[in-house]
């Protein structure tokens, strides 16, 4: 019996070692260790053994079974690994085949630039103020120090909805600032993005409706130096840490002193190119110290408070940012255009 067991172990070891598939291996397990297997058959004969032989053979049978089990396990691991690598090899795909399309919509480029600018101002403690687009002329003109007879009040420039010129489509988002000042005590720190309207025919650089972001800061001791510091910081955040900013005297009715803000051309770095029309600078903002008349008109004492205001055109910023040459593209909303953003 002992010999039989040793023979079985030898045969099993050989067959397991030669086995080539998991299926065959299972057959071997059944052959040797199954209910009707060879080891079991041996064990069944143990009844005929003497009391001295029985534990010896029993121990031997167990060790043979364990040895076979160990060999099976080792072989199984080896074959599994082999089969897995074969499968992986068979499953290889062409990774250059185009992707399954995931249809995600696109943000309009104006919104991209708007949100970016708004986020910068939010980070500087600004809030967003909104107001009506169909506006009383009092808010859009009178209280902004734009006197009767000023050219922007002409019917050739502004869309009127009342014959007596009392209501029109706002030409700027500045009336929002006046409304805000009337309702809030300083400190005031707001931006007012929104649609504005001017009577310009549609062409590559004009649109009768466009978007502005204007801003207003009012508090005690606000100066032109604060305007410079704030807007230079914003321009750096918008166009990069090394952006140079230039403040140039200009004229706006609602600010005094006034300035236009240029940034050094981010395309050519100031050497002059098509984008900056050879000037090396790109005009981006109008700004200035809020005119005392405007503060007083909105119920803020100009002897106590001062402030600065600024405004920029979103379409222009968007076109510069993405190199869009024709403003009409922004309002045609062609999917071939939108899907680029």
């Amino acid at each position, binding site marked *: 019996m002992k010999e039989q067991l040793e023979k079985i172990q030898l045969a099993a070891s050989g067959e397991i070692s030669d086995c080539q598939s998991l299926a065959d291996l299972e057959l071997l397990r059944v052959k040797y260790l199954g209910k009707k297997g060879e080891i079991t058959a041996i064990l069944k004969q143990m009844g005929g053994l003497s009391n001295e032989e029985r534990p010896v053979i029993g121990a031997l049978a167990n060790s043979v079974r364990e040895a076979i089990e160990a060999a099976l396990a080792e072989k199984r691991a080896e074959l599994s690994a082999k089969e897995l690598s074969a499968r992986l090899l068979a499953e290889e795909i062409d990774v250059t085949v185009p992707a399954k399309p995931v249809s995600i*919509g696109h943000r309009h480029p104006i919104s991209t630039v708007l949100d970016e600018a708004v986020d910068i101002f*939010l980070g500087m403690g600004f809030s967003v103020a909104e107001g009506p687009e*169909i506006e009383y002329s009092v808010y859009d003109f009178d209280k902004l120090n734009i006197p009767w007879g000023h050219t922007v009040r002409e019917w050739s420039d502004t869309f009127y*909805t009342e014959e007596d010129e009392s209501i029109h489509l706002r030409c700027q988002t500045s009336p929002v600032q006046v409304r805000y000042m009337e309702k809030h005590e300083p*400190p005031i720190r707001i931006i007012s993005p929104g649609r504005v309207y001017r*009577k310009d025919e549609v062409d590559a650089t004009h649109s009768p409706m466009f978007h502005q972001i204007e801003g207003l800061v009012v508090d005690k001791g606000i100066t032109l*130096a604060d305007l410079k510091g704030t807007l230079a910081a914003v321009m750096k955040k918008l166009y990069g840490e090394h952006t140079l900013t230039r403040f140039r005297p200009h004229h706006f009715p609602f600010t005094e*002193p006034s300035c*236009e803000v240029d940034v050094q051309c981010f395309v050519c770095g100031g050497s002059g190119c098509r984008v900056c029309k050879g000037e090396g600078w790109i005009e981006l903002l109008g700004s200035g110290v809020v005119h005392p008349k405007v503060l007083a008109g909105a119920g803020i004492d100009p002897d106590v408070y001062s402030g600065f205001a600024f405004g920029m055109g979103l379409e222009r910023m968007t076109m510069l940012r993405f190199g869009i040459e024709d403003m009409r593209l922004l309002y045609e909303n062609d999917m071939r255009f939108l899907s680029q953003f």
Partner: protein
Amino acid sequence: MKLSNKWLNEYVKISALPKEFADRMTMSGSKVEDFIDQSAQMKNVVAGRVTKIERHPDSDHMWVTEIDVGEDEPITIVTGAQNVSLGDTVPVARHKSLLPTGQKIEKGKLRGIKSEGMLCSLSELCLDTHDYPECIEDGIMILAGANQSSVTGEEILPGADIREALGLDDVITDFEITNNRPDCLSVIGLAREAAVTFGAQLNVPTPEITSADTADAIQNHLKITVKDAALCPRYTAKMIKDIKIAPSPVWLRRFLRASGVRPINNIVDITNLVMLEYGQPMHAFDYKCLTGGEIVVRSAAPGETITTLDGNVREITPDMLVIADSARPVGLAGVMGGENSEITEDTKYAVFESALFDGVSIRRAASALGMRTDASSRFEKGLDIENTLPAVERACELVELLGAGTVLGGTIDVRTQAQTVREIAFEPERINALLGTDIPAEFMRTTLTALGFLFDGDSVRIPSWRGDVEHYSDLAEEAARFYGYDKITPRLYLGREASGGLNSRQSAERRVSSCLRAAGYSEVYTYSFIGTEDYDKIDMPKDEPLRDSVTILNPLGAERAVMRTTPLPSMLEILENNKNAGNPEARLFELARVYRKNSNIENQPAEETKILTLGSYGDTDFYDVKGAIEAVLAEFGISGAEYAAQRGFPSFHPGRCADIIIGGKKSGIIGQTHPSVAGRYGLDDCFLAELSFDALIENSLSVKTYSPLPKFPAVARDLAIVAQHSVTAAQLRQCILENGGEFIVSAELFDVYEGANIGEGKKSAAFSLIFRADNRTLTDGEVDAAIEKILKTLTEKLGAHIRA
């Protein structure tokens, strides 16, 4: 405003190079748009004398010339021009030369004979006969005939650089002058700015008339009446006689040309020169054409017309100011003179007008007549009332200088507005406080004085030409721009702390956008205005209140004449654009305002509400759009929106449209566009949805809370139900949920089938039901009982039964 550097230097010596000049003027507030350095535009063009001229042997029209260009040997040039004679001095573009037209000249051969350059015509030097009346357009420019004096009056030797000989070595700087500074629309105004910018001395001589005929005074000839004092605060006139009309001298023609004005004759040129120099528009009338020897400044009479100097007949209206004689208008005040009183060759007596007219009135007249002129564009900004007299005296001084005539004694100066002296306090500390600077008071004083401000103790008198200055903040700007905006140290102070941020509505807009983009919809921007015909186009009923829109009284066209009350036409138009562009599909959204008349909102003229609009065509259907709406609602925690079939909205397919009902309130609409409407936009099947942004905000769950995950498994059962076609999915689902007992969690429709094997007029709806208890695993028996009750009720209430 174009400024000649040579002219500028008559008043202030500036030695800066063109680029530096432009940069510094820009930074002190006179923005330079562009500058042209004429010297850089012409190279290697010299004067040459024709020393030999003979026919080209192989041509019947060309000539072979030998030209002395001031060198040892003459050069040979072949020309096709017929006006060149022996001894003429002509401009010669030599080998490797550049002309101001951009043309480059090199030597070559013409019919076998070498030509070492080109003889130039006026146009090749960018000149014309207004610059040199003695020359011809169609031929070579003859600088001087043999043994004759030159066109410039100065000797031009062979080899002389043409740029210097003809004064084409100027620098022309083009300024963008802001509306508040009409004083800078003049050489003297810019010279003043330049003087302060560069710390140079401004020198403006007072005009002097030395040989006026004091015995013959203007008052003996002319009477002036200003009838409309408000529109004409001042009218100043002087007269000249014994006029000899001739071309102006070369220097004057060059100054005009550099400023973009065409020289005409000495008298007209003088008026233009004075306008450019002093910023005061002037006009000259032929005295003999003034009926009654009279000038009347009045409003136009109804039905009057005038033929202006440009030869056009103008119909003028009573809101326009005219210069008339006793019988008829002879000029449009501040805009253009009349042809009937024009200076001509036989003008002997002339009247110089130097007046101030109301800016708004002039601008409106010029705009109404479509003739904005150099004069009107100056008047419209509001000119200096004190400038009329010096300007007319300067004109007379020039008449004497040019020998163009004799100045009559006296001046007529009708002034309807008194002289006003404006003074403000000089407060350097306040100025520094406003600027955030430490500019010395002395610097401010020096600067303001140089700008023409007069100090009287602590107050400062504002010069008459600075109508824009009225407040200490204006003085602050003067101080700052010459101190240098760039020298002000930036500061990031911003005042007391303020906590900013988006409010919930503003952040909701961003959430809507990102949610829809995730759902495959792209954002569009459309115009707020539409045309009333757009309401017809979407079949809006004639009596629909939404047709009552805010109307733009002066629109850019009928298609942009009203503020939209519905976003549908805008969206359809964009879908149409995309279809026309050949895009196979589009899924779009816009979150923007619509506008209603008669707002209930305090202090606001119209009601403006935000609407979310969706539009799509291509591989999409009703349920696709509904899915996008549901996604937005889910983002805002809104559950239980209902969709009620809407058969009466004419823009939509009557069988494929629903009102969106949130919290029991109609909050939007969704559906397939009615085929007739879609057809008008060139579209086939397309889908639209509108959702009130207010409804979204009002119903949104402000705080989302967490529910614990279930601890026990759910039991899932599918149920296919056959019902009449008219029974809706919503009815079936509601019935299932109401009768599913305490353990039913959800019932989701996953398939609808209609076909022959179901029966005519019937449909099969398959639901997936989920049952679950919180504290144990449900038994099959419990679920079976619930299903049984559901089926029983479905049959009783909706006539539906389980699909066999």
